[in-house]
């Protein structure tokens, strides 16, 4: 056990791994397309935590810049993805990904 004022960096990385695994589980097991999309956001957040943790360890600001770019791309992705979900719902009246399988086979 280290002294009470310092948290090992590895704990942040373990937390990041747990959140990423939860994102994978949501992405694979859920059937609602909006929830699947939110699981992707959870995975992006987990990676951001690793970036910021390493930025702290290396005493460099670059990791936080990458986090900033990930956030901007996530915002763009959310806008386009939700527009696609809206269009799919308009045409098919469903949010279940099992029933949106025109491209399968």
């Amino acid at each position, binding site marked *: 056990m280290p002294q009470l004022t310092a948290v090992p960096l*590895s704990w942040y990385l373990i937390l990041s791994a747990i959140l990423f695994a939860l994102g994978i589980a949501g992405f694979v097991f859920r059937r609602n397309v909006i929830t699947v999309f939110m699981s992707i956001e959870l995975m992006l957040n987990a990676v951001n935590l690793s970036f910021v943790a390493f930025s*702290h360890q290396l005493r460099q*600001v670059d990791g936080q810049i990458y986090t*900033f770019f990930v956030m*901007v791309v996530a915002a763009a992705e959310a806008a386009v993805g939700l527009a696609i979900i809206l269009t799919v719902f308009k045409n098919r009246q469903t949010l279940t990904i099992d029933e949106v399988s025109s491209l399968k086979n």
Partner: protein
Amino acid sequence: MDLIFFLLFASIAVGCGISLVVQKHPIASALSLIGVMGSLAVLYLLLGAEFIAAVQLIVYAGAIMVLFVFVIMLLNAAEEAPSRKTNWPSRLLGVPLLAVFVALLAYLFDKMSPSLGTVTFGAFTTGGKQIGRSLFNNYLLPFEVTSVLVLIAILGAIVLARKEID
């Protein structure tokens, strides 16, 4: 004190993450995701990333999640119907394998722990000043490319949401 804050907000983040995966209703999942993002913002503050913590709350928990909640409301998304063909072998194998994956990563990080060092609050603090200086010197081209990307994303979202695709 650092340790207490870390453990508190890490457990909130993991709890909200589990809640995101197991909740049946999309709006409950969205609220859980907001919980994860809020606790991650506190962890960013503990890591000394003040600007990123603010952006996390404003952009993620603010803008992106409002978009999600708005779409859930607009589409009147109900509880997830049970899947017609649940693939039980994949579920029975998948969850333990995911747990093994996380356990292996945790073991690896724990072994690497002495060389990774520790995080002390206040040891390295960055505000908007350093971020801005780095962003507009070393990362000017990526920044401009990102602005073009966002513009294209806005146009794409408008076109997709307007057009009728058969």
